[in-house]
């Protein structure tokens, strides 16, 4: 029998806020252990939680981006369980009245090739609820250490409906989530830093069946490749069981990226009874419509909408929009440059997606120089593109100008002058140089007149050499044609 996979994801996203979810201690990654703590974080007797309004607003924005319903009231519950990473031995979370309900995330599946757009799908969300992160345990041979720096960081758990059908879709979902959330400044979504973490529920069913099979929950998926490999592994494991007539056991499984295998953590009978109940220390949160309006106005354009707009408004090809729109640093840069030189969108897009990327890559050993460190201002790039479009320097020379701009942050005009790239537009000087070139190569001149258009190129090289590259190729060609036509 042929089976299809049904996958639901639970994605935990750390919100970018200055302070923690329920107290005014700073959030952060990499601080000395147990320095970002206070009585609330450590669960000392008498400590009480106080809501971080910014975390609420960030979560509402997530809902607005994905067109979730934001109920007027959401509330807080305690999830009770015992583990040393949880300082109070309960976690403050939202059980039955989450901040976001429903919504969907547009994803793009891989295309047939890199320069071809893939299929788009909408992945339905069940809900998103806000909670506090736990501490971090490090296990030694004889003891375990706990660091509560991470504890209390605002964490938004985004839950999808069981509607994904493959590891590729899961990866595409995470990529889309990351693009949207980073663009809106909601999270940095760095999986290596634990800012985005994913659990996957996987089940199989015969193709065409509408009944869900028994699912397993995959935990510890700490990277995009981990998500992909763990889901593929689980689909293979379950299909082998089903094909030999066995039954999948409902259980939680831990993915081990090193061995590329998952192992059972706990079965259904060991499932925790979390004894949820409303947290009496916190009042329900009322979200007035005016707040939604204000936050909606602060949102950036959705990634794929922007991509479609660039396509129609600027006639940009997918190869450019997929670079610019999928990285909000680039799209913000692009927008700023286009604002300076609206007619030059296409040229600017080319420079942003190609030359600038090349320079950023060359600037550092590995990866890219962060956009915040790029010295060229969007206005300066616009200026350069305007000069190129005006035919004042050659594209070849423009690349060199860009390199210098990248290194120094100086304006293009000065650099062009310094490098002597100002194109000679004095046509009388060009005319005499061209005449000399034609006179020096009568064979080619004869060939051109006989109808071989390519013969024209034989004159361009010497002319460019004589003008030290400053001649405008289009102008030169025009002059040459006129001379050869005997005018």
């Amino acid at each position, binding site marked *: 029998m042929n089976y299809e996979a049904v996958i639901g994801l639970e994605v935990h996203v750390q919100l970018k806020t200055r302070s923690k979810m329920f107290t005014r201690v700073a959030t952060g990654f990499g601080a000395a252990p147990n320095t970002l703590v206070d009585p609330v974080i450590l669960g000392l007797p008498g*400590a009480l939680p106080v809501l971080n309004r910014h975390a609420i607003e960030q979560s509402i924005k997530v809902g607005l981006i994905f067109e979730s319903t934001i109920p007027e009231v959401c509330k807080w519950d*305690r999830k009770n369980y015992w583990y040393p990473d949880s*300082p109070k031995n309960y976690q403050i979370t939202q059980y039955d009245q989450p901040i976001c309900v429903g919504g969907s995330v547009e994803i793009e599946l891989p295309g047939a090739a890199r320069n071809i757009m893939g299929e788009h799908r909408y992945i339905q969300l069940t809900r998103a609820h806000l909670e506090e992160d736990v501490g971090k345990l490090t296990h030694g041979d004889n003891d375990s250490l706990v660091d509560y720096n991470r504890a209390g960081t605002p964490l938004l758990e985004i839950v999808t409906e069981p509607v994904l059908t493959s590891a590729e879709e899961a990866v595409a979902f995470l990529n889309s989530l990351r693009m949207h959330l980073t663009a809106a400044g909601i999270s940095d979504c760095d999986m290596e830093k634990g800012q985005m973490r994913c659990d996957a529920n996987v089940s199989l069913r015969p193709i065409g069946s509408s009944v869900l099979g028994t699912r397993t929950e995959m935990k510890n998926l700490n990277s995009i490749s981990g998500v992909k490999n763990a889901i593929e592994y689980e689909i293979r494991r379950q299909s082998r069981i089903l094909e030999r007539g066995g039954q999948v056991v409902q259980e939680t499984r831990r993915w081990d990226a090193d061995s590329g295998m998952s192992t059972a953590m706990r079965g259904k009978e060991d499932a925790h009874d979390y004894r949820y109940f409303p947290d*009496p220390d916190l009042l329900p949160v009322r979200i007035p419509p005016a707040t939604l309006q204000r936050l909606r106005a602060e949102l950036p354009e959705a990634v794929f909408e922007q991509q479609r707009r660039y396509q129609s408004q600027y006639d940009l090809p997918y190869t450019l929009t997929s670079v610019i729109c999928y990285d909000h640093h680039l799209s913000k840069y692009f927008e700023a440059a286009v604002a300076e030189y609206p007619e030059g969108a296409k040229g600017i897009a080319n420079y942003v997606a190609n030359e600038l990327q090349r320079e950023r890559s060359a600037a550092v050993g590995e990866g890219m120089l962060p956009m915040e460190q790029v010295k060229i201002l969007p206005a300066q790039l616009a200026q350069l593109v305007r000069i190129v479009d005006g035919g004042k320097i050659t594209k070849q020379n423009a690349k060199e100008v860009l390199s210098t701009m990248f290194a120094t942050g100086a304006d293009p005009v000065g650099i062009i002058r310094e490098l002597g790239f100002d194109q000679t537009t004095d046509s009388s000087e060009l005319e005499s140089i061209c005449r000399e070139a034609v006179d020096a190569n009568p064979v080619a001149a004869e060939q051109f007149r006989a109808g071989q258009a390519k013969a024209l190129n034989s004159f361009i090289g010497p002319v460019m050499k004589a003008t030290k590259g400053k001649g405008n190729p289009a102008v030169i060609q025009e002059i040459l044609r006129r001379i050869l036509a005997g005018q």
Partner: protein
Amino acid sequence: MEKSLYQLTALEMSGALTSGNISSERLVLDCLERIRTLDESVGAFLHVDEASILAQARASDQRRLQGATLSTLDGVPVALKDVIAVAGEPLTCASRILENYKSPYDAHVTKLLKAAGVVLCGRLNMDEFAMGSATENSAFKRTANPWNLKHSPGGSSGGSAAAVAAGMVPMSLGSDTGGSIRQPAAFCGVVGIKPSYGRVSRFGLAAYASSLDQIGPLARTVRDAAALLQIIAGADPKDSTCMRRDVPDYLAETMRDPGCLRIGLPAEFFAEGLDAEVRKSVLEAADFFAKQGHEIVDIQLPLTKLAVPVYYIIATAEATSNLARYDGIRYGHRSDIAVDAIDIYYKSRGEGFGEEVKRRIMLGNFVLSSGYYDAWYVRAQKVRTLLRAEYMNAFDKVDLILTPTTPGAALRQGEHREDPLQSYLEDVYTIPANLAGLPGISLPCGFVASGLPVGLQLLAAPFAEDRLLQVASQYERAHRFAGLRARIGGDEQ
């Protein structure tokens, strides 16, 4: 005959300090002397740091010399129940599990007391984690009722009531989750106020049941209690359940004529189970109010009978979660014989918690467990909502509710332990105020034949503490119970 210092009320002490007749140092030396002499038999205090207390008193005297006193109560001693955090001081909650724990921070009320220049004068005994009605669940000691040392002082704020009743300190703070200020106040013949829920910040109060807990004052007069409430009441951004509402001048309210009010006598509070002598005293108080021109109205609050079961479901559910943090991992008692993390939990908690705390943790876990949650916790919350509505409706018809604070006078020590369920039922008169978030005051209104005090309870609508104080003062001014202090040994009354 001139009064000894310990016979003074807090406001009298304040007056003596203001007139320069005594120093704060002299006052607290007298308190410390009295604690040294009497507390062996009363057992109200868990911890007294004499050096710190004297230093605070001297600092207060310094301020006074410089004309920079911080409040009316600057230099007056106040003792705290050992459930309210003071930076650098023990915070044991009368539990082995916090035996060696010191709080690194001040509770909000502690900050306010310090800002008012009050001398923080020792830590008071209580039932472990405020769970109990006799201060017999303390892991460290029993507290005796100063009126009769063989009797219980009530609980859980038994140390707070006994210390005041014995004149060891003029005032104290307690906490009230189901009657833990008012019941010991009644048993010890002192005044105790449970403020409205949200009137006083809970930040720094080790939580028992978060939706019910309130910190409140105990004192020998209504006016003293009002003065202390004045200091601790008000909004605190660190407690989300603490309301942003203006704080009236409570001391001024005690002097204001309440006019003619309607005072309700709920039938359920005078039914079977009420001691005849207590009933007599309380009804005499009602007669007094009638003579003052108030209208006494018979009312009914039928849901009162469900208050005890609802309380023990909600309070234990919250407690089981609130007390989960005492796990031996970060602070507090850790078992010496634990072999791994889970074992640390089991053994540290097994060794660290007393019997009653364990009983309530088990109860709380039961009512929250899947399969039982709807039948117990959810239903209890629904009844709580109905009960609150019933009381709020009553306040449409009457301005105050007048009841006995307890069904009888103080029990003999040990009587509470015999039957926990019977003991729970004793709290029936005080619990509704916590479930409905109402302010309540208990004040002395007489004695039973055996010489033990009787407490009168007045309840008002949320945030009507001012009205409670007006009426309680009116009663106090006309009776000889004000400023009562138990006689111990060779004391003079």
